[in-house]
């Protein structure tokens, strides 16, 4: 999660933008330059997909036109979710349509912009990245606390067994104390695990990097 968000420069974003209309992309570039975000633009979805796959940690926000030819915004949202990219996705449409917005949100979009885009949108676009970062951090802390509690419970159970046995157990009584733990009663807690924030378990559907 390190590259996803930088505490030191919380508004330093690297944005990936996909829209079939070069004028829209120009506007996006203007907005990004104004607030010193880096931006990479595409008029086609598939090349953007390739770049994303090859540079997973480089982008922390994606702007996506809902109605792209070929792979459209909805399919793209599904792709982002399946391949577990962290970057929040904001969808864009030239029409304000509640049903389209509903579909986009159900598929994981974090915001819905109606064109023509205003420059003001770029001023606070970093908040979407920040919000997601805070939520992921909280989830991770909750998971760590869960592991911590489980660990403590196991330790206490061991302690109960020992005291009921009375004397220090021989090795036959099992690996009750020594086992996999690195020390006596208060073993060292395992590190936070993978660098990925924990998510709900689901089957991964990688097509291969």
């Amino acid at each position, binding site marked *: 999660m390190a590259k996803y968000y930088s505490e030191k420069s919380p508004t330093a974003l690297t944005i990936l933008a996909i829209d079939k209309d070069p004028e829209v992309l120009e506007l996006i570039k203007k907005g990004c330059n104004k607030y010193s975000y880096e931006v990479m633009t595409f008029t086609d979805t598939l090349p953007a997909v390739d770049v994303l796959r090859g540079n997973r940690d480089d982008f922390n926000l994606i702007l996506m036109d809902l109605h792209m030819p070929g792979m459209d915004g909805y399919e793209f949202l*599904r792709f982002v979710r*399946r391949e577990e990219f962290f970057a929040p996705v904001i969808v864009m449409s030239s029409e304000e349509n509640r*049903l*389209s917005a509903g579909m986009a949100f159900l598929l994981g979009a974090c915001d819905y912009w109606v064109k023509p885009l205003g420059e003001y949108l770029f001023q606070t676009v970093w908040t979407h990245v920040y919000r997601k970062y805070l939520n992921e951090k909280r989830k991770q802390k909750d998971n760590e606390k869960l592991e911590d509690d489980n660990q403590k419970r196991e330790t206490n159970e061991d302690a109960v067994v020992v005291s009921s046995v009375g004397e220090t157990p021989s090795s036959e009584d099992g690996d009750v104390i020594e086992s996999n733990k690195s020390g006596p009663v208060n073993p060292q807690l395992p590190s936070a695990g993978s660098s990925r924030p924990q998510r709900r378990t689901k089957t991964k559907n990688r097509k291969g990097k």
Partner: protein
Amino acid sequence: MDKIHSHRQVAAIKHSLFDQGYLDEQFIQLEELQDDANPNFVEEIVTLYYRDSSRLISNLDHTLERNPLDFNKLDTLMHQFKGSSSSIGAKRVKAECTLFREYCRARNGEGCRRSFQQMKKEYATLRKKLETYFQLARQAGPLETAYRPK
């Protein structure tokens, strides 16, 4: 065996909806967006559609009662409604919307009213058929657990 029968029934209903022109390709696009992360996506979207469009329809109703008719407003409202109907693949409903808009452009109030009534009929019919379809699909359960004939 029951499961196979249920799934065949669901498939049959879906086929007839397409054959009779109630649904088009767009409905299939919705189905393709459904997966483990969104197991009831199609039903959720259709529910959203009916909830959202009922507002548009009552709006259209009110606007059609005015005298003289505001054709521009009618056209704008119908454009929105057509867009949503198109998103779920409601083929017949969409066709009536197109007709309605043509009557608007021709400033034909009677044509608008007639086509609007027809549209509402199609809209209601589709709703019932889809409700049945989703109910049966839910009862039949996930496809993986049933035999899928070629």
